[in-house]
């Protein structure tokens, strides 16, 4: 499974837990649009740390870094 597909499955799981629709495009906003809340964001961060070894304490964190699948892939590539 590619990175994008893995991310999509992970995020769909978070959306399902929040009883939100699970269809979204790679560029759709996840957090700024309030589809997902801050607790979901922390769960996603923990998944990204485990999956890609990203050290967020070294990153100048802003929610726009992980607000969509496109943003996350860009972050992973830059790391």
């Amino acid at each position, binding site marked *: 499974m590619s990175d994008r597909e893995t991310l999509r499955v992970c995020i769909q799981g978070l959306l399902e837990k929040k*009883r939100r629709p699970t269809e979204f495009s790679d560029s759709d906003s996840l957090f700024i649009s309030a589809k997902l*809340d*801050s*607790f979901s964001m*922390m769960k996603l961060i923990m998944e990204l740390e485990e999956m890609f070894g990203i050290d967020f304490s070294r990153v100048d964190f802003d929610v*726009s870094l992980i607000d969509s699948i496109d943003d996350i892939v860009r972050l992973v590539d830059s790391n």
Partner: protein
Amino acid sequence: MSHTHFPPSNTFHHRMRGFFAIDEREPVVAYCQTAAGKIALCVAAGLALQLVTLVVQPDHRWWQVVAIILAAAGMAYLPKYRSAILFAGTSFHSFTSLPPTVNAHVALATFMIFAWGTLVLVRRNKSHVYARRPVITLIFVVVGMFLISQLLPAGMLRSGVLALMWLINTYIWFIAYAIVDQRSRHVSSDMFQLGTMQPFWGSTTTPFGKGAAFLRKTLSHTSLDLVITQIKGIKLLVWASILLGLKLFLLWLTVEALNLPPVEQALAAYLRGEPYPILIGWAAISAETADFTLWLAVCGHAIVGTARLAGFRLPRNMCRPLEARTLAEFWNCYNFYFKELMVDFFYIPTFLKTFRKYPRLRMFFSTFMAAGVGNFLYHFLQGIFLFEEIGFQGALDRFHTSYLF
């Protein structure tokens, strides 16, 4: 994988929602995009806002409401001048909301220079402590200014220091968001940033709409998006008016009809050893909780409704909190922007840096920093002027935060 149950679409609830979903009706949306429709939108918003303002902010005059609506309409229909209108609208609102004294206006102008200087400083020096730790730095500034004011003799200088301290304290979370926004990929102009500080559509000490970066993300980009956002804004303003009516009815019911004591009075009676009957006590608590909740809802909906008229499709501050299934979800639904403030400045920074190898401890400690420490600091700063008004001991006695047992 768990299965999510969605309620059937022909329930009474869904039918009611469908009835009120005028923003989904094409004839309404089409009409509101005409010149007559735009004027009708502004008039409707103005009337609803004026109704709410009469009770929520009785010192506001009708022309201030007109100015707010004009600024919102200007931002919506003249996007080329959006930043300038936002800055002008906010400045006008801020200056006309102050006491009409030269000192107050000079203090506000000084503060605006301070805020602008902050933006320039953090942009030029991203490694400066002010840029990296905005909240702690600002708290030190406020407390430091307060302590300095206590050492000064009574007079113009002391009054000036206190006035500036009061303003920085009032805007502290707005400045913090503006500093953090300097890190985002596309930084807003200084004019836009300054316009978001206690913006003309209203706010409390909590920024409704967070910072400029969040506001830009919620901005409507097409004329269809804009008109739908504006209709949603008016619906919210009308809903605020209805809730205000409910609040006033509840007040009449509890005070005039049932003669319930306020909670403070009931508590004092209990402490004296003369408690009210248990049902009266519970009724008083329930009534005051409902009253406060309605107040929070009315204020939040009025602010967000007006911001939506300007084209920002902001989430509501309160949205069906009784449907929340967890405590975390409840705070998301009950006081969204306050929750976001705690998350942005306490939860996330703590989470990213501490106990990374221990997930449960990490989440627990981050929650403690937000719900405990952050909450305390927020309310401490809100009440800091008590130390000036009634002295250190008096302020501590009256300090309502329950975290210091």
